[in-house]
């Protein structure tokens, strides 16, 4: 994955969620964003996921500048996948329809193709038995897995995951993380934010540490976890790793 971000700034009122953020990634399929809450992880994901336009700065993904027009962003979102913490699924549709609807209406598949694609995706993640359940009948972990299945069913170039397990209990967290790891091993390019440090270390090719709207430092996970360069990251790690 080649990602270049320069001078990215996004303000909500007076609060700068991203403050002149810079980040360059040359290689690696999985980028993990780590850092304290309110440090800008979500906002960064939303901007590079095409859901939010920055106030200033540029993002270049695989040599292409992130579009600024609404129609450009729409095409960009259609080419990529995005998953939020929770409530990703449409509650009035069953799991299968949650997958087939975008395939038909956004990606131009026929109903038969969409059904085949969707069932294949559900099957792959062991969710086929739940195809005809509504989101309310699924556990939180199952909901997230269906959400991921929906996001990858259209073969996205990059999959963006914003704290995909933050709303789940430990057992469900494990089942979702396993799935993400499986995708990563299958070659899916992923940018995700998480508070699961063990998982971050295992799955990441690159980590970026964000705080106060900036990338404080970035690099391969082994080096960063063993020996973070900044005082800020050291303090953060000593806190979050204390009980591991």
């Amino acid at each position, binding site marked *: 994955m080649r990602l270049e971000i320069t001078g990215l700034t996004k303000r909500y009122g007076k609060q700068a969620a991203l403050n002149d953020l810079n980040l360059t990634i040359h290689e690696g399929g999985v980028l993990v964003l780590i850092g304290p809450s309110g440090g800008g992880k979500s906002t960064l994901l939303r901007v590079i996921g095409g859901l939010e336009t920055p106030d200033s700065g540029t993002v270049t993904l695989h040599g292409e500048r992130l579009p600024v027009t609404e129609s450009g962003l729409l095409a960009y979102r259609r080419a990529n996948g995005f998953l939020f913490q929770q409530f990703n699924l449409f509650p*009035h549709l069953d799991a299968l329809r949650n997958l087939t609807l975008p395939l038909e209406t956004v990606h131009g598949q026929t109903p038969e193709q969409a059904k085949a694609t969707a069932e294949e995706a559900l099957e792959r993640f062991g969710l086929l038995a739940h195809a005809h359940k509504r989101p309310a009948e699924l556990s939180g972990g199952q909901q997230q897995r269906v959400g991921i299945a929906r996001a990858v069913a259209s073969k996205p170039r990059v999959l963006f995951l914003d704290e995909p397990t933050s709303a789940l209990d430990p057992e469900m967290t494990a089942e979702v993380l396993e799935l993400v790891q499986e995708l990563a091993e299958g070659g899916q390019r992923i940018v995700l934010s998480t508070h699961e440090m063990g998982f971050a270390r295992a799955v990441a090719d690159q980590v970026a540490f964000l705080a106060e709207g900036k990338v404080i430092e970035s690099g391969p996970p082994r080096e960063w976890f063993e020996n973070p360069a900044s005082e800020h990251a050291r303090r953060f790690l000593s806190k979050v790793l204390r009980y591991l």
Partner: protein
Amino acid sequence: MTASRRNWNLIAGLAIVLSFAAFCFLIFSGLRGGWNWQGPWEARELLFKGWKTTLWISLSALVGSLLVGLLLMLGQRSPLVVVRWTCRLFLEFVRETPLVVQLLVGYFLIFAPLLSRPLDNIGWDEKLIIGIILLSLFEGAYLGEIFRGGVESIPRTQWESARAVGFNRVQVYRYVIFPQALRRVLPAVAGQFVSLIKDSSLLSVIGAPEFFYQSRVYVSKSYAGLEAYIPLALGYLILTAPIAILSHRLERRFRDET
């Protein structure tokens, strides 16, 4: 239910039935001359014609008010502030002035001078058409507010997820927001439709030959009393009751679904 509660229920029920019966007795014993159903029966064609006109007005205004309501809702969510304010202003004006005044002003001052001749030329009843337009605007303003409430009650996460899967603006509304909002606003919309049917009786002030108007015509010709108004009440009930029943049924179905 406990035994004592059941007893009290029985006593309360009896009391209500008895006082209602006494009330009816007082009213009806005060009537002179007794019943005369001959009159309404002879006027049945006139009354039925009026009832059919009311049905027609209601159906047309129902479609019309849905369109107006939808437009007002979308207008209030427009990115253009001028459009938002115009819709808001129109909506407040319509909701905060009496329908009778709107009908009189709308008919005599605005639409009749504009539309009378062209409608006459194509052989349409101008009073009906203009009445339907005015009624649609009035009920549409209420529907606009109901729709807006429904759409705004859908959580932010649903809008975001819909954008994230790549739906465009129209698709977001069509596939995600409307189906969910519809379930929430259905009881209120049904209530508004019931109001619409009843409000259509006010079109008599501009002389639209609907049910209430024809009943009045009959009463003034025959000096009939209660015999004319009971069919009137029943006639409206036949139109409104199915909507109320349907809405309760749909409400239950949607609730079971989610």
